[in-house]
């Protein structure tokens, strides 16, 4: 249900852009107004969401410790799985954000005869996740060539590396192959692993199809259905210089691509995709496990009703005296 719904939704988006530009000639709407609205929604929505999280305090220091804590000098401290200092926390976060450290631990459990529970290493999710996210990042960076008059050297270098196989013309980008393979894998595992299929919501399929749609239209434009690429840069530069222009003859495929990208941007702040910001704010990962050494304040800590020793002694004084326990009041 979620799958079909999401697929239809993304196909509808494609048709809207196709009809809007190919049929109704709404180039300005799809090339200027919607992209502007999308980037504004994305930035404002993203910021507000993160500020919404920032408004909520972290009352307790509760890192999930995934290794040996700092202890005696003669016990080996697992610095990045159980950080003790801010520097080590930064290390843990970098490993988490850049290399998906936690997911790397993933195992697959099977119940075999015996009975015997067997745990196998299962790195596919980690690998596909990492491949997907990194190629997405590289692709985004590559696209910066459309947005700068002088394309930064870094962007050119990334592009050079991405195309270093020198296959075909225009050169085949490695990330184009990787992202489509990885997203396809992530989709297939969602459908065929029974537990994952069971937990999947429309909100899980929808972004997968959106991203797949973006990648496919992008690949089509680069390798198969030619578009007026200089015109696209003129349009992009028009957007970023706030002097929007809609050059002639760009090709409807570009507007479809742009429309799905805009949808993704607008959808982003209201969806699970906010894990991009959230991963940095997860208190089980971004805090040091040093509570015994360093105080952590709870901003809403309040006095609670307690049962004092005096009340306790009042209740048990006679019994305490009989047992020879010292008491405060005779």
């Amino acid at each position, binding site marked *: 249900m979620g799958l079909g719904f999401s697929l239809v939704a993304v196909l509808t988006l494609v048709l809207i852009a196709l009809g809007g530009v190919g049929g109704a000639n709404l180039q300005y709407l799809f090339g200027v107004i919607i992209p502007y609205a999308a980037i504004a929604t994305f930035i404002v929505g993203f910021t507000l969401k993160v500020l919404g999280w920032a408004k909520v305090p972290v009352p307790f220091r509760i890192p999930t410790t995934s290794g040996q804590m700092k202890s*005696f000098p003669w016990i080996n401290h697992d610095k990045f799985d159980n950080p003790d200092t801010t520097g080590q926390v930064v290390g843990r976060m970098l490993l988490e954000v850049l290399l998906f450290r*936690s997911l790397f631990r993933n195992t697959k459990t099977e119940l075999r005869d015996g009975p015997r529970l067997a745990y196998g290493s299962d790195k596919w999710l980690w690998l596909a996740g990492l491949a997907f996210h990194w190629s997405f990042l590289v692709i985004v960076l590559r696209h910066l060539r459309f947005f700068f008059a002088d394309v930064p050297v870094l962007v050119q270098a990334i592009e050079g590396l991405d195309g270093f196989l020198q296959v075909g013309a225009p050169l085949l980008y490695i990330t184009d192959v990787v992202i489509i393979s990885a997203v396809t894998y992530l989709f297939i595992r969602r459908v065929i692993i029974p*537990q994952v299929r069971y937990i999947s919501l429309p*909100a899980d399929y929808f972004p997968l199809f959106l991203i797949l749609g973006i990648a496919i239209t992008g690949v089509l434009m680069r390798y198969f259905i030619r578009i007026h690429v200089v015109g696209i840069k003129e349009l992009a530069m028009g957007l970023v210089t706030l002097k929007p222009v809609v050059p002639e003859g760009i090709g409807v495929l570009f507007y479809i691509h742009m429309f799905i990208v805009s949808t993704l941007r607008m959808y982003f702040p209201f969806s699970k995709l906010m894990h991009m910001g*959230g*991963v940095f704010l997860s208190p089980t990962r971004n805090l040091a496990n040093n509570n015994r050494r*360093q105080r*952590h304040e709870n901003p809403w800590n309040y006095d609670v009703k307690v049962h004092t020793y005096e009340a306790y002694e009042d209740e048990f004084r006679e019994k305490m005296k009989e047992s020879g326990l010292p008491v405060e009041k005779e």
Partner: protein
Amino acid sequence: MGTPKPEELIQKIDLTPQWPGWMDTPTEIKPGNFCWGAKAKDLDGIGFPNPREWNPGEEDWKLPENWKEIVIEGLRERLEKYRTLKVFMDICVRCGACADKCHFFLGSGDPKNMPVLRAELLRSIYRREFTTAGKILGKFAGARELTMDVFKEMWYYFFQCTECRRCSVFCPFGIDTAEITIIGRELLNLLGCNIAWITGPVNNCYHKGNHLGLEPHAIMSSLEYMIDDIEEYTGVKVEPTFNRKGAEILFITPSGDLFADPGTFTCMGYLLMFHELGLDYTWSTYASEGGNFGFFTTNEMAKRLNYKMYAEAKRLGVKWIIGGECGHMWRVLNQYMDTWNGPADFLEVPVSPITGTRFDNAKQLKMIHAVEFTADLIKNNKLKLDPSRNDHLTVTYHDSCNTARGMGFMDEPRYVINSVCNNFFDMPENTIREQTFCCGSGSGLNASENMDLRMKGGLPRANAVKYVNEKHGVNLLANICAIDRAALTSSMDYWVPGVAVAGVHELVANAMVFKGQGKRTVDLRGEDIPGMEEEEEAEEAAESIAVQEPQEEAAGAAGEEGSE
């Protein structure tokens, strides 16, 4: 109880979820899988809302008319207080990495025991009430209405989670189901919907100082039994003190260790070791509970119970505190205590009076773990040990969820065990340290009416024990948790008969050689130590040299082991 036999229980596990989807599958509250509802007198005793007699198995839970409003408002309040909750509600991508990491899912196959779905129970309400998409798109956005059935479902599954945090280790965003369950249980508590096995101990602990409700004289007589046993088995007469002002150290351990085997043996271990060291320490009858079942009700209640530790340390004028072997106790101490009830400026940074080691890692909390204390003693050669006294044991170690994932206390206990036992084998790596499996009965679920559930949840741990039992002949499961000592005993009897359960300090005391001790042919359980009893008759006459005897035997026994 109608707990099925192990073979039957195994047969029923199917890890493949069956359609229709979880939102369309009504929850059936099954006997053997839930605990009795919180009793009116206990709720009343601790000032919790809606005290009444009720039975979760019945239709009417006797909730106030505005129950739904109370839950939603409670959720709103907590979304503003806990960043964990807010972020975890928003960012799960349902990648499924956590799905097969939960012992309850692996042991029951119930899809709602997958950590992600346990959180979705609450998340679906959050989306419906607090997000625009959820309000408009409803089910398509993964949102659903909070109905009485949904409320009962949350109750059922938040009391099928032991807050062990294993899923959280694997989650790419560190989403911690324990946090979801803790807050979920807070919401349930707003309507008096806890379980009797939790609120009973909480009420006891609040008024009497410990979960078991032992009054001062009962604590003392419990310990007196142990003192007698210790003297009988070792010839050593220990003399603990209670509520003694001016002692250097306050010792607090879970009350389970005062009451039931095999926890009592661990307690006897502390008594012996502290006595042997001549430690200037005292017990307290007021702060006589290390554990904190309040942690399984609400944050506030946990703080109210925890208050006693520092308050008593202050009243008695001790310098610092040693805490006994307990799992969730140490998560609470390590991650909450100072924030709740600190700073304890009236205490000093713990310094071992025996070794002089300064515990700077605890300089804020002023409380150290008994195993930490002992590891330091052993490292500094301050305990006279004869590990061969434990040669009849082949030991493995169960990391408690809380000390592993809420603290990272993993190598200290292993160091101690390896120093007092010659035969130690770890379980497979996916089942120990940060990946350790819960005993199946943590977070207040170790009642008897839910034995079916507990044995299911205990399967992954037991299965790993069985592996080392078959491979290495492991016959003793060591641990540093009072709930483990009780729960794993049942779980071993059920899944891996023949494996005993013991706290680490029981092993320590059994391996210790005491000043001027008599001939010791039995362990702290009063059981003959194989290899020690034979000489009893032969050397009766030579009892005066018995002190040296264990040493020689150690060499002999080690040689035998080595030749195997």
